[in-house]
């Protein structure tokens, strides 16, 4: 699992590549922790190359969302493939996040 965070057009963009399974969750959470300090910017989770997301991965996404919402920010999910979208649908998380 590979995570890159960069600023693009005034948004903080986290690019996730690989499979966010249970084993990779702790490492990914650590890699995404800088997003907790983001203020006044929207966060985009770029999942174009994310092949799988586990329940542990969804909890990380949710924690980022709740943190951003407390600060008045938005979290957008970008470019998820069909299998990851199916997981979002099954878990009902497709109603929680905004997709671009």
């Amino acid at each position, binding site marked *: 699992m590979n995570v890159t965070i960069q600023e693009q057009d005034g948004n903080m963009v986290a690019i996730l590549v690989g499979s966010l399974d*249970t084993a990779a969750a702790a490492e990914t959470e650590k890699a995404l922790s800088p997003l907790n300090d983001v203020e006044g910017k929207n966060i985009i989770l770029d999942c174009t190359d994310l092949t799988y997301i*586990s*329940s*542990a991965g*969804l*909890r990380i996404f*949710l924690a980022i969302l709740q943190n951003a919402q407390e600060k008045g920010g938005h979290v957008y999910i970008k470019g998820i493939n069909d299998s990851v979208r199916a*997981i979002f*649908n*099954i*878990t*009902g*998380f497709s*109603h*929680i996040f905004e997709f671009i």
Partner: protein
Amino acid sequence: MEVDSLVFWGFNLHAWITIVTVLSMFTVLLFTKLRADLVFLGAIAILFVTGVLDAKEAFSGFSSPSVVVIGVLFVVVAGLTHTGVLQWIVKNLLGQPKSYCSAVARLMLPVAALSSFLSNTTVVALFVGIVKMWSKKLGISPSKLLIPLSYASGMGGVCTLIGTPPNLIISGLYTDHTGNAMNVLATTLPGLFCLFIGILSIIAFRRLLPDRKAPESDSEDTVEYTAELIVPSTHQFIAKTIGKANMFHVEGCRLLKWRHFDDAPVPINENEILMGGDHLLYAGRTKAIIELAKEHGLILGDEVVNVGYGTAISALIMLAMVVVSALGIMPLLQCAFIAAAAMLLFRCCSPHQAMKAINWDILMVFAGSVVLGLAIQKTGIAERLAFGILDVCGTNPIVVMTAICFVGTFITEFISNTAAGAMFFPIMYEAAEKLGYEPYPFLIALMISVSSSFATPIGSPTHMLVYAPGGYRFSDFMRIGLLMNIIILAANIFIVSVVYPLTPLQ
């Protein structure tokens, strides 16, 4: 004044007191909501005070082996319930039929098959709890299935000579009279035909079965039910904590295990978040878990049966009881006492659970019905009724056979099937010989008719076993039972005359 000197319409004073008592008792049971046990005790008191029965006879019901065996079987069944045996049977043997018709067939056929070689009382005692759990799963009121259960055991018992005591009595008396033994499967074909007609009739007249909300028994209340509830993706508390969703502290059940859609286990903590596709395993009272599912829009998943050491032990105890009594090594009463003791010894149920499982009201009613049967026998009401009807029947053998079977079916509603079999054997045998016909077919028809008591709950111990769990009223049995009595009587006479054509005596 001599009681026997006062005879009116062929019945003496004691017989009339018994008739009036029985009719009054039925009227009270049908038209008032007085407790059945109280009504029966009142009837016993009248028969005792008026001298119809002496003290020993009046209270003989409380020491009757058939009454005591039911009480002891309640404890055996408690052991089976609390160790998950009944739950296992529901899940693996009865399954999940799609319609009421297939549920009735799926229940009645195996029950009838088991009853054809095991004691009907044992089979029904075992299945009452099973059917209650099953009906909850199917969303059918238990009252729609418990009467068919009891009827199936009665009709199944008739299918072999060893299936029910009246068959043994009648065949034994036949052997004594003729020196010829009846084949153990003599009643199989007629019995199966009547069973088939019986199942079709239950399905056809299912509207006559009440749709009662049966009371949750004390024993069921304490039974640990374990079921998985699934969180739908549209649930309003998705991504919220389980505590906030009010699904953590639930009265009557507790959360045992929790896993997300990817099988990742979730710690049992009220601050954990819910996701669609979560599987929540709750244990506790059936009612509490079903209500939790309804109130929170959760999907009721599979019932989880915790099969373990206790399950195997209690199943073995039950099997040993059934085999030892079926092989005649020991009477059912003794076997049941040993099995009940073993259930307690091996901690399949606690002494408290065992005592709570015994339904004392039912035992009281059953004891009362035994005493009532005794009064009817003692005062000669049944014989007089049969001979009175024979006088107006003429010489047509089918009419005579039908008339005696009709009276037999009627009388067996009040007295035990075994007593009815013994009482009606000489009447049927003599009537057949007098008409110049071989008594064999007449006796086969008699066997079926004395076991066809469908119209009152006191007609059979198995009816008493389903009476309280089904939440039935006295009149419920009459509504479908009277019709069943007539249908089975017609089926009985038809099939017996086809399978065993009447032959003149050589």
